[in-house]
């Protein structure tokens, strides 16, 4: 366990090293937030109560999205690019020479990264958003705690999805295509473009049932107090279920990959 704590700490530090990149990220998230916020204002003044949100809730959703964009690596930028590159070049061999579990290793590192992104790239845009707009911030500290739990689960699901994507490089040699598809899918199905409860019918049902809704839609609904009591536990169970299923799938794929695969290059 101490090893994985150390790996998580180093994951945190690696991202903390790049201060300019962090500042640029905060800036981008903030600009994005304003653009989306005004779009949502236009939309919600035409259609108040769209998706069951009032305007303050919709704007809160926007700024939560910006705060969690990097945390849940919804536009990529996590460990997966590095892992794909290591598989492509054969550097993965070095990881296999170590007495560690590959998946836990990358999970720990990604949790460290996510924590840094949550603090370093999440808080500032959220504060700016709440100063510029009227947001629906929860008053009950327990809701904040529940939100943090939902974010943590969302990060694990996000990791599990990206791990599967990265492992595909063992077969495809270049995982960039799959990564891009996953990124596009993630942008839409996480609720980053529009809250998923806005979508009607079967598409809406499907979008809400897919793992990506764990990244943003579920944490946001917890934050907005839409999911309380037994429904809150249901939200956690939904995220944890996806996390376990996808982590399990990752383990199977990892076992197959390391057994049959030829490590590239001398």
């Amino acid at each position: 366990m101490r090893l994985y704590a150390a790996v998580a700490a180093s994951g945190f530090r690696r991202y903390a090293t790049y201060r300019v990149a962090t500042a640029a990220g905060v800036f981008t998230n903030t600009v994005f937030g304003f653009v989306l916020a005004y779009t949502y204002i236009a939309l919600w003044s035409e259609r108040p109560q769209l998706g069951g949100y009032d305007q303050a809730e919709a704007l809160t959703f926007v700024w939560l999205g910006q705060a969690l964009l990097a945390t849940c690596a919804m536009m990529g930028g996590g460990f997966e690019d590095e892992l794909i590159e290591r598989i492509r070049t054969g550097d993965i061999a070095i990881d296999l020479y170590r007495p560690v579990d590959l998946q836990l290793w990358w999970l720990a590192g990604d949790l460290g990264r996510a924590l840094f992104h949550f603090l370093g790239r999440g808080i500032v845009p959220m504060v700016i958003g709440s100063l510029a707009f009227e947001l629906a911030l929860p008053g009950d500290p327990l809701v904040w705690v529940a939100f943090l739990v939902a974010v943590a689960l969302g990060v694990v699901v996000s990791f599990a999805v990206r791990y599967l994507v990265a492992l595909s490089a063992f077969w495809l040699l270049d995982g960039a295509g799959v990564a891009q598809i996953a990124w596009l899918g993630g942008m839409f199905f996480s609720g980053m473009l529009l809250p998923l409860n806005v979508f009607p019918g079967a598409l809406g049902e499907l979008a809400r049932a897919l793992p990506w809704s764990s990244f943003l839609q579920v944490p946001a609904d917890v934050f907005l107090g839409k999911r309380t009591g037994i429904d809150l536990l249901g939200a956690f169970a939904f995220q944890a279920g996806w996390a376990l299923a996808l982590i399990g799938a990752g383990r199977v794929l990892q076992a197959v990959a390391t057994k049959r695969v030829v490590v590239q290059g001398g």
Partner: protein
Amino acid sequence: MSRHPESSADGTDHIVVDDLQKVFDVRKKTGLVRREKHRVRAVDGISFTVPRGEMVGYIGPNGAGKSTTIKMLTGILTPSAGRVRVAGIEPARDRTRLTRRIGVVFGQRTTLWWDLPLIDSYRLMHRMYRVEDRRFRENLDRCVELLELGELLDTPVRQLSLGQRMRGDIAAALLHDPEVLYLDEPTIGLDVISKTKVRTFLRDLNAERGTTVLLTTHDLQDIEQLCERVMVIDHGRLMYDGALAGLHEIGESERTLVVDLAEELPPVDAPGARVLKVEGPRQWLAIPAAASAAPVVTAVASAYPLVDLSVREPDIEAVIAKMYEDRAAP
């Protein structure tokens, strides 16, 4: 730092390889859609043993099967046939257990974390290999001293020079006291001073701690300075396994006698020697490496006006190149 206890299941043989094979199926495009499958025998029936504490050179041209062998010795590739044991462990079956007992250095790759200071990578190694605190401290101090890493510990790895990074990588591979060390091109791209530092360190490590070392390299000076035994592999087969000196006989190598005569003369006639080149008063004579040069020298000195002479030992590089050529054109 203590020597390792004798615990190998194979007695004193630390690495045992018996009729090892690795076959890859390669698909080749032969038309627009047609693909032909053919088999590549990357390692084709290799057998050898390495006793504990020996330092062995493992050489061969690119694509000979060196890296494939190393990958099977570390367990990241499963052999197609044959037997491998490293420190009594079957690598492919027990990879994780084996990783605690071996160290691996790839000249072309790094185990260090690019964005982090060197010391952070070492701290991760400490946890990863669950090295006892005191022993970790001792090993680190020793590596830092001998590999001159002191001033680099707080430098992010991405800012290190190639030589510095390589020394950092070697240290990283040794913090958990591995019994067996695989070195793949440990001096590639290094300048002369860095090469010397690395070689000296490896020689001391082997002498003081009895670490078994398998060294893959293209730099034959590495072999000449470090290994008494050398294995040559080509096309997946072991072509030579023995003392470095023996390579000369096998490779039919020749020593060169350079004679300076008092005047320009036609090629000298000396029994047991062959004139390679004449350039003014200087002539180059070839003698089989196994034969003595003395009779030739005597013959030349008695029949010709000899001014000066020198003997050049055969170049190991030429010997091996000749071996590869012979093999390629049977």
